[in-house]
Structure formats: structure tokens, C-alpha cells
């Protein structure tokens, strides 16, 4: 089944260029360092995907990333960008084709936001109006109003600066983006907002993105693939979040993703991704017998009572069905309802909180869409290996 | 005139001295005790007095400015003005007021220390991180305790750095004091200049430089000793 942030890999992208990235037995030993920061690292990132490097502090994430745009040079192996070795390129030129966002953002305080964003286009010698057009485009892309363009970094909030940093990295429409803990310094609330923003953005621009973090939840949320690294740049596991949570390669990964990986996995998919139970409904005024018979057929001891407009009214325990036709007062109020885009994680939460009774799912227009029960949810986990 | 003067042989200087060689050790040795050494000591005294007084004044001002922010600006303006006035001029401008006295020299020298010392002291004090002060208050330090136990110790490196600059500056400027008082290393330098006597110029000049460098070095040691934590912070 497809994952919640699968949007990233669907539909036509307005931007043509996304490059594949391949690490081939990459090694890096810093001059004078006793042991290599990265010993032998190999993995491949398909074009247009987000690959998250995650791991404990000092495991080599930043190093691996900086090897790509040759901020530092590798001491073994090779890195291919769209099949071409980066070592064949002039560093400066290479970097102009790779968006780079560092944790501290590093905006130029002496330049306006617009000038900051225009940096690479200027370096590439774009003409004036093309550049300005692009800057406007990017400001809207990261949802900053054009007016902001004239401001100086000193006049922006932390979150806004982060967005500018991203916009600046995107300026020349690079096929590859490197983001080193871009949201590391931001409080949890704004952090979540920026994460969602980046995902929305990526759904549009569809870049190849290498994203460094040491927060596993962020990794799961952001990554199409996750590379879990450990001391010395060893690749503990490289897989989709789903596989990673489903079967961790070893003890280290298991501990790293956490004991509740089962539940974490549920955050990856939404109700819309699974087949809902239906038919378990009763209409106001219909004969009790029919309803009871329908419930029995589904082996359920309750139905969802809906009105003429298909709007769910409440739960209807079969026990309540005496001879009379089904009436509104027979129903118990609903503790909660879910929508199709609710994540299975939240759905499970609602089910469990409601004593494991099936959860009522409604469409955006409020009409009954179907039911979710524990079995469906856990089945989802089973089928997704 | 019948009784023309008898002109005795006054004795001649070494050949090096006579034809004004670049540097005549002999002369230096000869005149160390009665010319150079006294001048050096006077110079040290001139400097020490100026720096001590300057520090006292600057410190008071800095504390005041630290309490009441608005004081800083006027102080910087005034001391900055004093600082800008060329030493030679300042000395002369003071003559009508305080005459050709050591006081004149000291007043001028002190006025040159003020800007540097004040600015560094204030920078040191206001450089103390807000959270550190917050923590100190939060643990129940009174304002006075905060000043003496936290702010001043943390300001020390900046203060001593200022002291270094001030001292070296004064040592240098004290030579110019010769235009008002015949004291310090300026005296031999100036008289040598008037007689274009190279040895004395170089000897006295070198002494002055050496003195400045030594003072600077000693103050660096002081700075180190007073701020052990800086080393580890840098390390």
C-alpha cells in the first residue's frame, strides 16, 4: 500500500529536474583523525525522493552530506549524481547545482531576503527579470508575501528565516537538495509546521532531497527512505519507513525506532488507505427485524444509525432493537468520528479510547463512509510487509 | 683683552660619539646611571600614576554607566574628544591652566586612558550574558553581590585587555610629555634630537619600546592569571 506522504511521488511535477544520487563504498577520514568518520558507505537515492539520514550524534551524517557537494572531499569510493561522479566536477559549479540548507541557515545579514534568494541565480548570471520573477515565485512557494522580499534577515522570525533558507537553496531549481537538520533549532510546534510545509512543497517540486536529522520521528515523517547510520558512518539499515518499522534489521535499529514502532507505523497510513466496513447501518424508521437480521449477517452486535441524509446519528446496540421500527432515541451518541484522511494511528487511538468499538468514518460532507475496527487496523499492519 | 680666558682641554668623547655613530655602547654604559636610568624610572612613574588614576576614574564612570545606561553616551563623547586631541596639542592646551608641571603631564596622560578603559570596562560588564545574571538573581544574590561575584569577575578579561592598551598607549605618549616637563624617556630623546645624537635617540627610544612591550607582556600574564576559565573555554 502507498504511504501518507506518497504524494511526493505522484502526479506530474512542474519541475523537470531531479537527479538520482548514489554512494559507492564512500570513505572519509579527516586529516589527522585516528579513525575514519565514514568507513564504507553505499546506498542509492532514486530521483525525486526524500532520503533521510538519521543516527546518533557524531555518526557521520553531516560528513556524508558534505561529501556530496564537495564541501569536503572523499578519501575513498565515489559519489554519483545522475550517474556522473561528483569528483569530475568543479566544486563551485557542482555546488551551484545542489541546493544546500545548513542547520544555522546562514542567511547573509547584509542582503535583503530577495537578494539572499537571488544569490545562486546571480552567480549563474541569470538576467535581471528572470531572477526577480524567480524570487517572487519562490517567496510564494514558501508562503512568504512578496513584501518580505525587501526585509533584512534581522527582521524575520526564526521560522521565516528557515523558509528563506529553503527558498534560497531552491533558487536555481537544483535537481538535488541537501538539508542538514534544517529544523533542528526550532521548537516542537513550529517544527511540525515547517515539516508539513516542506512535504507540501516537495509534493509540488519533487526534488531529490537528502535530509539529515537525529530525530527518528522526523525521519519517519519526512522520509521516502531512511538510512539509519551508526558510529563510523556504517549503514545499520536503509529502507522505507514502513519496512524499517515493520522489521528492523537488528537490535540497534529496533532500539532506535522505539518499542512502539508498531504504532509509529500506523502514522504512515490513513483511513483512506484501507477498505472500510460497510453495510452495518440502520435507517431511522426501518423495521427492527431487518436491522437485527443485517447485524447478525455481519456478526456484529451493533449498527450505526443514519438519518435520511446518510448522516450518522449514533450507535444502535442490537439489544435495543425490540419489535418497534428503529427510532432515534434507540441510538447512543457517538464518542467520536474520523475522516478518511485521519491517520490509522489516530484512528486506533479513538477506537481504543471507545472500548474497541468500531470507529465511525465520515466523508467531508459528513455522510457515513463506513466503519473501522481493530481488526482492519491491525490487518493493515500485517499486509504492509 | 689682557686676561683672555684660559680654555682647558675638556676631554673628548670616543670617536664613535664624536662622529655620531649609529649606536655607541660606551656612551650608553657611561650615561646609564645618570641619564637613562633616572629617565626610565621617571617614565615608569609617570605611566603608573596616569594608569592608576585613569583606572579609578574610568571604573567609577563605568559602574555608573552600567547602572544608568544613558551615562555611557556622554562619557564616550567626552573621553572620545579628549582622545582625539593630539598629545602635543593637549599638553600645550593645558599649560595655561596648570603650567609646565607634572600635573599637566599627568592630566593629559590620564585623559588618554579614559576612553579605552571606560569602553572596555563597560563592554565587559554589559557583555555578561543575560541568563547568567538572571540565574544569579534567581539564586538570591543582591545587586551588589551580583556585581562583585559575577559581573566584575566576568568583565575582568575585557578590563585587563583595556588596561593593556591604555598602559602601552600611555608609555608611548609619556615621551611627548617632555614638551611640558623635563622628565621621562622623552627628555633624552628630545635633547638627542636637538643635537641629532643618534646613540641617545636609539637608546632612549629602544628603552621606551622595551618598557611598553614588557608592560604589555606582564599584563597578559595578569590577564591569564585572572581568568583561568577563559583558557578552557578557548581550548
Amino acid at each position, binding site marked *: 500500500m502507498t504511504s501518507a506522504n506518497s504524494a511526493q511521488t505522484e502526479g506530474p511535477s512542474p519541475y523537470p529536474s531531479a537527479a538520482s544520487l548514489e554512494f559507492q563504498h564512500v570513505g572519509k577520514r579527516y586529516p589527522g583523525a585516528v579513525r575514519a568518520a565514514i568507513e564504507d558507505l553505499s546506498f542509492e537515492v532514486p530521483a525525486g525522493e526524500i532520503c533521510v539520514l538519521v543516527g546518533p550524534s557524531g555518526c557521520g551524517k553531516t560528513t556524508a552530506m558534505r561529501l556530496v557537494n564537495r564541501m569536503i572531499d572523499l578519501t575513498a569510493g565515489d559519489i554519483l549524481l545522475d550517474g556522473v561522479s561528483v569528483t569530475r566536477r568543479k566544486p563551485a559549479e557542482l555546488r551551484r547545482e545542489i541546493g544546500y540548507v545548513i542547520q544555522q541557515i546562514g542567511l547573509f545579514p547584509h542582503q535583503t531576503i530577495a537578494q539572499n534568494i537571488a544569490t545562486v541565480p546571480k552567480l549563474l548570471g541569470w538576467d535581471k527579470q528572470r531572477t526577480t520573477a524567480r524570487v517572487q515565485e519562490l517567496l510564494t512557494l514558501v508562503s512568504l508575501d512578496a513584501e518580505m522580499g525587501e526585509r533584512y534577515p534581522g527582521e524575520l522570525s526564526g521560522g521565516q528565516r528557515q523558509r528563506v533558507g529553503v527558498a534560497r537553496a531552491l533558487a536555481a531549481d537544483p535537481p538535488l537538495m541537501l538539508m542538514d537538520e534544517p529544523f533542528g533549532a526550532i521548537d516542537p510546534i513550529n517544527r511540525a509546521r515547517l515539516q508539513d510545509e516542506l512535504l507540501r512543497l516537495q509534493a509540488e517540486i519533487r526534488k531529490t532531497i537528502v535530509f539529515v536529522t537525529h530525530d527518528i520521528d522526523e525521519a519517519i515523517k519526512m522520509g521516502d527512505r531512511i538510512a539509519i547510520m551508526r558510529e563510523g558512518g556504517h549503514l545499520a539499515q536503509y529502507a522505507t519507513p514502513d519496512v524499517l518499522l515493520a522489521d528492523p534489521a537488528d537490535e540497534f535499529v529496533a532500539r532506535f525506532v522505539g518499542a512502539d514502532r508498531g504504532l509509529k507505523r500506523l502514522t504512515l497510513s490513513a483511513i483512506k488507505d484501507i477498505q472500510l466496513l460497510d453495510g452495518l447501518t440502520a435507517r431511522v424508521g426501518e423495521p427492527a427485524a431487518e436491522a437485527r437480521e443485517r447485524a447478525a449477517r455481519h456478526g456484529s452486535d451493533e449498527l450505526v444509525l443514519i438519518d435520511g441524509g446518510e448522516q450518522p446519528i449514533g450507535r444502535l446496540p442490537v439489544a435495543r432493537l425490540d419489535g418497534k421500527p428503529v427510532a432515534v432515541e434507540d441510538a447512543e451518541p457517538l464518542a467520536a468520528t474520523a475522516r478518511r484522511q485521519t491517520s490509522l494511528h489516530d484512528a486506533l487511538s479513538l477506537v481504543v479510547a471507545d472500548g474497541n468499538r468500531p470507529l465511525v468514518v465520515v466523508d467531508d460532507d459528513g455522510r457515513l463512509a463506513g466503519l473501522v475496527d481493530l481488526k482492519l487496523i491491525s490487518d493493515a499492519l500485517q499486509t504492509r510487509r | *683683552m689682557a686676561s683672555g*680666558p684660559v680654555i682647558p682641554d*675638556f*676631554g673628548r668623547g670616543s670617536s664613535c660619539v664624536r662622529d655620531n655613530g649609529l649606536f655607541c655602547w660606551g*656612551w650608553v654604559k657611561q650615561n646609564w646611571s645618570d641619564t637613562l636610568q633616572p629617565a626610565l624610572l621617571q617614565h615608569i612613574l609617570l605611566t603608573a600614576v596616569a594608569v592608576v588614576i585613569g583606572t579609578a576614574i574610568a571604573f567609577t564612570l563605568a559602574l555608573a554607566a552600567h547602572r544608568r545606561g544613558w551615562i555611557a553616551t556622554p562619557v564616550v563623547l567626552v573621553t572620545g574628544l579628549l582622545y582625539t586631541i593630539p598629545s602635543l596639542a593637549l599638553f600645550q592646551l593645558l599649560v595655561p591652566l596648570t603650567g609646565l608641571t607634572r600635573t599637566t603631564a599627568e592630566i593629559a596622560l590620564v585623559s588618554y586612558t579614559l576612553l579605552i578603559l571606560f569602553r572596555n570596562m563597560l563592554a565587559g560588564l554589559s557583555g555578561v550574558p543575560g541568563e547568567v545574571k538572571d540565574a544569579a538573581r534567581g539564586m538570591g544574590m543582591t545587586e551588589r553581590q551580583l556585581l562583585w561575584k559575577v559581573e566584575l569577575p566576568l568583565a575582568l578579561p575585557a578590563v585587563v585587555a583595556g588596561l593593556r592598551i591604555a598602559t602601552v598607549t600611555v608609555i608611548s605618549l609619556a615621551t611627548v610629555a617632555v614638551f611640558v616637563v623635563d622628565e621621562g624617556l622623552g627628555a633624552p630623546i628630545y635633547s638627542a634630537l636637538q*643635537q*641629532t645624537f643618534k646613540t641617545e635617540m636609539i637608546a632612549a627610544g629602544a628603552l621606551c619600546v622595551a618598557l611598553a612591550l614588557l608592560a604589555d607582556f606582564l599584563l597578559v600574564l595578569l590577564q591569564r592569571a585572572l581568568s583561568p576559565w577563559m583558557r578552557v573555554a578557548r581550548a
Partner: protein
Amino acid sequence: GGSSSDTNTTTGASADTSTSAGSDTTATPVGQIRLGAPPEFRNRPTGLPGLRAKYGITDVQFSPLTIGLQYQALDDGKIDVADVFTTDGQLQSGKYVVLTDPRNVFGFQNLTPVVSTRVLDAEGPQFETTINDVSSKLTTEAMQRMNAAVVLDKQQPADVARAFLDANGLLRAGTAGAGKPEITLGTKNFPEQFILGQLYAQALEAQGYRVTLKQNIGSTEIADRALRAGQIDMYPEYIGIFNSTVAGDTRTFATKKEAYDAGKAFAERHGFTLLDLTPFTDTDALAVTRAYAAQHGLRSVGDLASASGQ
């Protein structure tokens, strides 16, 4: 006049050499005269204006120099002609020729000890005699030699003074000063003054006077103020400067005597006394290098004027 004889002696020394020089080389003309002197030489009557007026020297490239640097400048060849003082020790080196000044542009600068009259009376007649005895021995030659000893040979003024006084029997111990009030003797801020201070002080002390010597008190004005303020009781001053700077009387005097009398008169009115003039005069004078003098056959300022085609 003693002063004129003094000038002769100096230039006499140079004259014979320049005659010999003049005999074998024909004087080559001087172009524009490169003259170095203290800045104010440009405008003061005893400077360029005087030279222009009395010798018609106009085409001068003037480079201002602080006192003491002229000889260096001559040696460095930065200037051809330097404004010097007739008693400068450097002239003893024989490297330079002082041009005579027949038309008397530079006036008279014989030295006279300025004493507060009150003190003079208090100290008694012997005091004045002692000082005048010393002054009478101070010829240009003597002063030049002593200056040379201090400025060139770096002898201590005190030693030089002692040697001179001793040689001239001015240290013979006396008791005239016994019980007389202590006096403070000030000197201005250059070597010649240091020597003079030592000369008078030691001579007086030999006679039993108690003397404090305040050397290097500064310029004429400072000294003058100090005297009026009673900070010092006496200091050696040059008659010309006394007239111009202290008395504010800028006339040019025909003779040394006129100048002295003018000064004395002023002094009387202001409560101090000028003691006898010294034989030596420490006037400005134009000096050139021996070589330069020989090349252009220079002896007097007049020669300079004609040699520069003026």
C-alpha cells in the same frame, strides 16, 4: 667692540682657508640658495626680510628646520646654507664656514644674567662681582669649545664648567656668600644654557653662596614668568632676545651698547637687573660647508649674495 672682534676670530679661522681655496679655484655661481632655518626665520626682521633688505638676497628656497637639525641638514646636503648660532659647538668641528655679517642683520646676542634686584641687594656686592668675573671670561671661542665638549663629546655640563672655572681660577674658595639667603638659578632648555647655569652656580658656590639650579625651565617667556613670579631669582638671557621678547622692543640697534642700555633701562623699571654682558655673542649666522664655501669662494653673506647673482 668685543662682538665684532669675536666674529672676526671665527671667520678668521675660515678666512685663511677660503683664501687658499679662492686662490686656486675660480668661484662658480650659486643658483637658487637652499637655506635651512627655524620656521620663523622666514618672516622675522633678523631673518629673510633682513637679508633681503641689507644684502638683496631674494631668490631663496627656504626649508624650515627646528633648532639643532641644521647641521644634519647641511651634512645630508638637503640645504646649502644653514642658519646657526655663532657659539654652536658644531662650528668647532671645522667642517663649516660661518659667513661674516658686516651689515649686521643678526644684531647682538651677548649674554647677560638677569637677576631680581631685590635678591641682588640681599646677596651683597660680592655676588655681582663673582658673576661678572665669570661672564668676562666667556668669549665666543670659549663658549664654542664648551658647547662642543657637551654637544659633540657628550661631556657633562657640570664637568665642563668646573674645568673651565678651575682653569681660570674662578673656583678659589671664598666666604662672601656665608649666611646670605639661598638663591635659585634657572636656565632655559638647551645645552649652552645648561653650561652657563653650571658656570655661575659653581662659581657662586665656591664663594659660599647656597644655590639651587633649576635647569631646563623652558623658553624665554617661561623663564621670564618664573623670574617675575619669584620661582627663580636669576637666569642667563641674551640681550637681543631680552629686548625683543621680554621688553617687546624690536628696534635694531647699531651697537651692542645701545642694545644693552635699552635692556637695562627696561629691567630697572621692572624690578630686575641686567649684569655685565659676556664677550661672546650667540647670534644667528649663516654657515655653509667648507667645501661649498671653497667652491663658490664665500666668506661673507655679501659673497653669497653676489655669487647667487643678486
